[in-house]
């Protein structure tokens, strides 16, 4: 169980995130939505312990994550937004390093890496340098790295970025299966339709505040909107998208 209590992060006394609270039970997939600058990335960084909150707490199974960060991270799988890997390593070398740092035994590590590389269609490219990988291939390496140690908590920050249609389809089903298998999943994305299909619960942020936190199926009904897209636009949008699009066309044509 991941529990976030009144989480606040200030940068030079300006709040990036304020009083964010939510909880994710095992088996739940919480989708986090919000426009740019809404505090999604800051929230993710605090969830994985990269950032110390200005106030508030992140509890995992009842204990503050900062009390035993290494123990917490042993149970955490994380996929960052940018696949910023080490270009001179091969995919296999990177995964071996991650497996070793996660304390996996050599035989188990190598077997898992080989199997996951096969399943993610990366086996033929395993010994090529990461510099030669496409963004989608790097993203797949990161996904394998996150899943390598059978984590109980998964934090995904825009995991579908750069993935081809088939990989994205596999990944969406994978997340659903991970949730069904009792894992706790925090899923951050801009893509509403994926979040809508995959997540059991939704958290919508705007300017660092929680503007909605509901079960995914209930959100449009509670907000009396026809779809998640409408709900989202209504909750976070400060501008009229239709009007701005018209203005852009005018400027382009000028």
């Amino acid at each position, binding site marked *: 169980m991941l529990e976030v209590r009144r989480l606040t992060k200030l940068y030079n006394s300006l709040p990036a995130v304020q009083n964010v609270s939510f909880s994710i039970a095992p088996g739940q997939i919480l989708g986090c939505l919000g426009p740019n600058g809404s505090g999604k990335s800051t929230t993710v960084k605090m969830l*994985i312990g*990269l950032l110390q909150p200005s106030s508030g707490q992140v509890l995992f199974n009842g204990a503050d994550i900062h009390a035993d960060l290494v123990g917490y*991270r042993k149970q955490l799988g994380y996929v960052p937004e940018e696949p910023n890997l*080490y*270009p*001179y390593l091969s995919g296999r070398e990177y995964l071996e*390093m991650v497996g070793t740092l996660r304390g996996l035994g050599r035989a188990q590590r190598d077997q898992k890496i080989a199997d996951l590389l096969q399943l993610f269609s990366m086996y033929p490219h395993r010994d090529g340098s990461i510099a*030669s990988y496409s963004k989608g291939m790097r993203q797949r390496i990161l996904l394998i790295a996150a899943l390598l140690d059978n984590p109980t908590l998964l934090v995904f920050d825009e995991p579908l970025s750069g993935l081809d249609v088939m990989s994205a389809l596999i990944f969406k089903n994978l997340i659903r299966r991970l949730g069904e298998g009792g894992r706790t999943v925090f899923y951050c994305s801009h893509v509403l339709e994926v979040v809508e299909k995959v997540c059991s619960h939704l958290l919508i942020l705007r300017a660092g505040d929680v503007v909605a936190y509901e079960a995914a199926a209930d959100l449009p009904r509670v907000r009396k909107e026809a779809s998640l897209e409408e709900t989202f636009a209504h909750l976070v949008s400060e501008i009229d998208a239709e009007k701005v699009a018209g203005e852009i066309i005018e400027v382009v044509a000028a």
Partner: protein
Amino acid sequence: MSDDGLSDRIAQRVEDNPLYQLVKLKLGRMLHGANPDSEDFDSGIGVALSVLTLPGAFLSLILFNKYGSLLHFLRGQLKFDPYAASLPDEYLFIVLAMLVSGGVALWKWDTLFLDRRDLVNIVPLPVHTRQIFQASLLAVALLALIFCVDVNAVSAVLYPLVVSASQESFLFWSGIALGHVTAILAASLFSFAAVFAIAGIFMAGLSARAFQAVSLYLRGAIAVALLLLFSGAFSVTAYIGQGTVAQHAALRYLPSIWFLGVCQWARGDAGATFRHFAFLGLIGLVTTAVVGALAYALAYQRHFSRMAELVPSPSGHSLAGLNSLVGRVLDRTILRTPFERSGFRFVVRTLGRSDRHRAAVAVFAAIGLVAGTEYLLWSGVDPPGPSTAQFVSPLILLYCCILGLRYTFDLPVELNANWVFRFLIAPTLEEGSTLAAKTIVLLLLPIIVVVSVVFGMGWGFVVGACEALVLAVLSVTLATGIALSFRKLPFTCAKAAFQQNALPKLLICVPGIFVFAMLPANLQHWARSNPMRLLVFVPFLAVVWWGIYEVRSRQVSFERQITFQETDETAIALLNLSA
């Protein structure tokens, strides 16, 4: 149990140790460079390691002439004492070791500390931050050791052999070898550790943004200090040869002389002065290493643990002035086509903001500055008019800057960015060399103006105006000449032409300085009493410009067209007959 099985198990246990993995990762990161997505580095580091051994090897070979017994016999030097004669040379090796090792530390400056990539990849894993710090420090120490051994490897073998060429005693050879190896290794490590400590101190003391802002200037200052140490080495060797080191109190503040003491101490031949120097050297080495480690710990605490909170921002200057009056004037007078206007702004902004490119230009400028200053100091002045040396110095500076800029134009920026130019620029465009030449001259214009004003204030308006004219004409000529085969928009092509035939090109640069700086300066000196004598330049320039014109007219259109070719074309295309 077989030995193989045991060693395999030991190797596996080491490889399965997290500390080993972290050290390996950090070491790889430093060896392969900070630039994220280039595939070229595997071959690059091998070449770099080989090139770094060359200065010591060359110096050893040059000295063979001095120690050969046959040559002494032919010269009638029957009482030659190689032990005493080797002391000034030993000092040269020490300075060279310090220069190259310090240079390597400056080169690897950006990778010495952990960065955002490490933060995202390593920190979310179940690893103690303390362990990440220990691994990084260990990796830096290993890097220092690898480069210090590499830089001195050839000379460590060759030089003792050269010195003891006329001696039959193994004891003699071992004494020389022990002194030499101890001194150059200690000097190398000291130099690397000193640069590392300076970086650490500034990083620990300044905010990330402030450190980013001063980083280049700091590196430039260290590079100048190292070059001054090198250029001053020849005067110090004279004192060493005369045995008058103890009489020059200022020398004891030179770290390089401390390691000469270490050499003498290791040879077992140190008097009181050199014993004192040896003591200073060893204390200095330990102190810089300890200070470096402490500063690294503080910098780690201050920056890495808070890196997630920092918003990355481009370094350098906004250069808003390019859109102002100066920019408009340049657009109307010199930069005549849209390609030149946008290309010039792109180049200036890249040079202003890319650490890698700024550092490359700074290195050449520092060499020019030090060489020019040294020449001036050595040659003295010749009142009442400007001396030849005073004419030579700015020309040396300009020469180095022009070469530096030309070299830097070949260094690619982020490759993913060049699609914009590929998409927008017509493939038949032939303005690459013109843009390069104009950009070089425009970037050097401030130097020409400052030098001319100084000359004008010192020796009157006419001298200042003549100096401006000569510097401008020579700069335009050289810039046009070396940009003749340049077919790119600077920084946008990964095919680094300078890597091909790099050594011959470098060798041509050395005599080039006589043609560009020495000869014109002598002519200027001759013409200082009568400016009309400057017309003597006309025939020389006419020949050069005729040559440029000839080369240009013989280039086929393809050789002038802009290229973004990112790989070398294969010399032989193979037919796929199996298909």
